[in-house]
């Protein structure tokens, strides 16, 4: 690979990492529709984990873009824990296809919940707890407008989520 090609590859890798970080900021700010703007129309989203209890791979959430939009639009109709979720992410690997039209990335994340009304707001609001940890396994399409998410698999290490959540991670 010549120097120009190497520089171009690094640029694509930086763009992939950048879109992962932007996605986290948008999710943290609950700007879910803007998060979906970073995704291709055929984007699919899953939350999965392996259970050593039943010794099975499990899918805990699975949606396409219309499903995610519907879920987001219905959020105001549901009672929920309004604690703020904050994602801390490190992009570990970015692998760009030779064609430079697709890429995959693996990132590690920790998601914290700063409590508001989930238990007793008088005492607990403002406290930050570790909610869950895991990895993002992302796949991207790369076009003229830059990388777009094609697929995200949120692979959870944490399996005891207690009250759970209504929000994408």
């Amino acid at each position: 690979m010549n120097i120009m090609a190497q520089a171009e590859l690094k640029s694509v890798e930086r763009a992939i990492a950048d879109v992962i970080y932007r996605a986290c900021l948008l999710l943290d700010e609950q700007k879910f529709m803007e998060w979906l703007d970073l995704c291709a129309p055929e984007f699919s989203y899953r939350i999965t984990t392996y259970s050593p209890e039943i010794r099975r791979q499990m899918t805990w959430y699975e949606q396409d873009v219309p499903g995610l939009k519907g879920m987001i639009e219905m959020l105001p109709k549901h009672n929920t824990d309004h604690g703020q979720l904050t994602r801390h992410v490190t992009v570990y690997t970015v692998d760009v296809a030779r064609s430079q039209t697709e890429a995959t990335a693996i990132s590690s994340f920790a998601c914290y919940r700063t409590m508001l009304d989930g238990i007793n707001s008088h005492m607990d609001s403002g406290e930050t707890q570790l909610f869950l940890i895991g990895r993002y396994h992302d796949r991207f399409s790369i076009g003229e407008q830059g990388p777009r998410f094609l697929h995200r698999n949120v692979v959870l290490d944490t399996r005891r989520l207690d009250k759970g959540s209504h929000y994408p991670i």
Partner: protein
Amino acid sequence: MTAQMDRVAYDSGESIPYVDSRIYTDHGIFEEELDNIWKKVWIATVHESELPAPLDFRTLTVAREPIILLRGSDSKVRAFLNVCPHRGNLIIRQPAGSLTVAEPSGNANRMTCMFHAWQFDCFGRCVDIPRAKAGYQDRLKKEDVALTELPCEVAHGGFVWITLSADAAPLSEYIGQAFDIMKEELDTEPLAVFHYHKAIISSNYKLWHDTNSEFYHDYMHYFNRATSMLQKGYFDRQYTAFPNGHCTVGSMEVKYDAYQGAADRVLSFPGMPRNGWKMVDLFPGATYNIRGSSLRVDTMTPLGPDKVMIEFRGLGLKRDTPDEQAQRIRDHNTIWGPFGRNLHEDLLGITGQGVTMRPGSTPRRILHGRRENNTIHDEIGMRHFYTEWARRMGRSPSNPLYRAQIAAE
């Protein structure tokens, strides 16, 4: 005696039945519940599909007693106390696995206590005590010790039921006719687990069973209001009470497409109408809930008066194709997964109750008084539970410290 019985039977049919919140907060009552209820009755635990092969095991805890469930070389599932008879160490530490895998301090096909390498076979027999002759001479041999075996049956959709009471009546007697409403769905063909997760909530276990035993709280769930409460047949659903504190809730046709983004269920269970919905609530803390394409089974492990672990399983048919199972999982997750619409709301509900009912907090009345001819918003399910609770505890749920007061007088 008559006066005592009057005070135990809180559901007299008059005025507004209530329970005293101390039944959810008092440490002494909690310890009595472990002794008088949880160590006496049959408890639904894991599903047999979690132990598919000989020598597969699962571990769990009931009323603080650690337990091993093990499928023997003869394919029969047995239950043992997970306690070494030597110095009381926990023998199997993993939640699940297979004895065919050797442990660092023991041979394959055996349960080995890692502490001193005492080994037990799949029937609970002790098969090796290292240096037994040197240490015990002839005072103790491996034939003299064994793991304590517990009564264990596989029934009602393939669940493994156990009891800590060696002299408990058979499971069939304890359950009675409570599963008749769901028998065809559960027992026509084998089921398989596709989902498992757990929650530990700072609240009393009975508050979760209360939630599963009354539908008035559907006002909390937009999903249920749209797809059920506003639909034909919802207010006709009937509760039926059975001996030993169990009750069932009859079916209706849920209109899933009344919720944006949800779709009517394509799959079902044998004998279950498409989009049907049935429930069986079992004393003291398990619920079978079939909605359309998935069966959810809740089991509880009380950890204290103000702490409970709830385990959630989702099941379909064992013969499901991968596509069919994926569809059942999607349907299940819409409302019942850890990111589902309803479960999060239900857990917020008992979390809030746990805030108002902490050990030491002011006793208050919790109303159980809705009467609507045993239909869906009637609170007969809770009243029936607490009538059984009173019978087993010898205490009135509306005056739970009565016995202590008598002693003081």
